[in-house]
């Protein structure tokens, strides 16, 4: 079967169809023109209406005629050939002047790229879903709808289990007391009191730590209305620094399949601040640098460093 021939036959119909479309458009335009102009001035009201209606009917009939003509022609044009993988754009390959308009080769190239991109994006998205960094419910909800299979089960943990994990961690460290609140729904907020050094507020989402803020032992953890205050920063520079470091630690300790291990590691790390004011920097050996004690704790060794002394 020769594409060339069938295309050649149809070309005639194409050009007729195009002029039919033009005719249709002009007759439709006339409909609206006449409607816009309204009734022409005649002696009697009746005469005016009659003339207007008959003119309107005429125009509508011509629209109808043009439409029928177009339908007839479009049947002649026939369906576009489906044999070419690029459908109609495959026709570009017929352009004999390759050198001047290299559209077809460019199109193929683009097609290949787009295919490759889709493939890689698919791979990446499935990988990312396993290593979930997503922390907000909205995102999770949306992705769960699209790919229910890869939704991490770690986000649907019963509150009872969270309580258990937290109380087990609390028992592990005698110098650390953890109070659990659920001020809004099921998400837990932990108030961690470390010795007489600091108080940390840890906002959880299921077993993922969402946010943390560290304040001095003697600073308020409750706002004026008696609710736990998860927003205001510490008044002390040293605890503002520690808060920054703790936020870094949240991003560092990530193990999506075992969220309880993450919480435990974070708490172990946080616990190393028990000697916040007592430990000298492991690098420069001093206690103070720019008026601040060593606020950084190494994620592995838990050694104390000044912010600027860490590697």
């Amino acid at each position, binding site marked *: 079967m020769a594409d060339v021939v069938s295309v050649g036959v149809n070309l005639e119909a194409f050009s007729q169809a195009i002029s039919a479309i033009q005719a249709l458009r002009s007759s439709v335009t006339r409909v609206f023109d006449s409607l816009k102009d309204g009734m022409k001035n005649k002696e009697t009201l009746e005469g005016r209406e009659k003339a207007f209606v008959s003119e309107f009917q005429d125009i509508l009939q011509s629209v109808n005629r043009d439409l029928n003509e177009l339908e007839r022609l479009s049947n002649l044009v026939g369906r576009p050939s489906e044999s070419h993988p690029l459908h109609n754009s495959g026709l570009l390959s017929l352009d004999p002047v390759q050198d001047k308009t290299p559209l077809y080769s460019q199109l193929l190239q683009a097609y290949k790229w787009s295919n490759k991109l889709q493939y890689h994006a698919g791979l990446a998205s499935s990988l990312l879903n396993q290593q979930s960094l997503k922390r907000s419910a909205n995102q999770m909800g949306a992705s769960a709808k699209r790919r229910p299979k890869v939704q991490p089960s770690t986000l649907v943990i019963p509150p009872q289990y969270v309580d258990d994990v937290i109380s087990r961690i609390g028992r592990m460290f005698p110098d650390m007391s953890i109070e659990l609140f659920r001020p809004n729904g099921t998400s837990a907020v932990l108030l961690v009191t470390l010795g007489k050094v600091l108080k940390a507020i840890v906002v959880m989402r299921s077993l993922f730590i969402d946010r943390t803020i560290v304040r001095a032992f003697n600073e308020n953890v409750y706002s004026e209305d008696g609710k736990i205050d998860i927003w205001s920063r510490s008044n*002390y520079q040293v605890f503002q620094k520690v808060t920054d470091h703790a936020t870094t630690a949240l991003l560092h300790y990530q193990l999506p399949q075992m969220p309880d291990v993450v919480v435990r590691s974070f708490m172990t790390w946080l616990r190393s601040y028990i000697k916040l004011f007592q430990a000298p920097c492991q690098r420069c050996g001093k*206690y103070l640098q720019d008026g601040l004690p060593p606020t950084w704790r190494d994620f592995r060794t838990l050694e104390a460093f000044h912010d600027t002394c860490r590697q």
Partner: protein
Amino acid sequence: MLLTFLFFPIFKWLQCVTVPVAEGKSVQQTVEMLNKKLEQLGAVKQGNFYVDCETYHAGAPAIANSGQSQKFLYVMHNSEAPLSCFALFENGPCLVADPNFDVLMVKLKSYFQNAKGNKVESRGARYQYCDFLVKLGTITMGSSARGISVEVEYCPCIVANDSWNLMMEFMQSFLSSHVPGAPAVFGVKPDGIYSPSDTMVQYLELFNKVRKQQATPSTGMR
């Protein structure tokens, strides 16, 4: 002048320690020198402060009844807690009250006499450096300067033991060699949490030292 000028660093409820200053300088000059050092360090001046201390004798009748030796009641004020009044006995309890306590002492005047001449106070500048608060005061008694008080407070920490090394290092940065050793009162409240009255107890000890130190040279002058 016979007076030796003294530094009395006060920490959050750590005992004050006396350190002699370079000779040939007046209290004023030494205070100015220290102010300059603090400013060089980057400390920012934040207004002034005062701490004062009135002495009351327990009057004769009370002593006759209680059978105790001469006792002093001290009533102190601190600009850091402007709406409080601190009443203390040496080595005894410290009562924190509102300013009406001063009025009460007036009512009690037939039992506790105010020894006007013994009023001691320390006034000076208040500096902030990061989370440190430094108060550099001239201690005056009567009309003469008796010494210099240096109060260093590391605000984020409420347990004295914890921050001792850190404070030492900080004080070295502007007091150089005059930094005292670990104060003796260290063990008194080892796990305790700082309260404003702890500072007042230290100031009282400091002021009493000033009174005693002054008693010796001034006897000839009276």
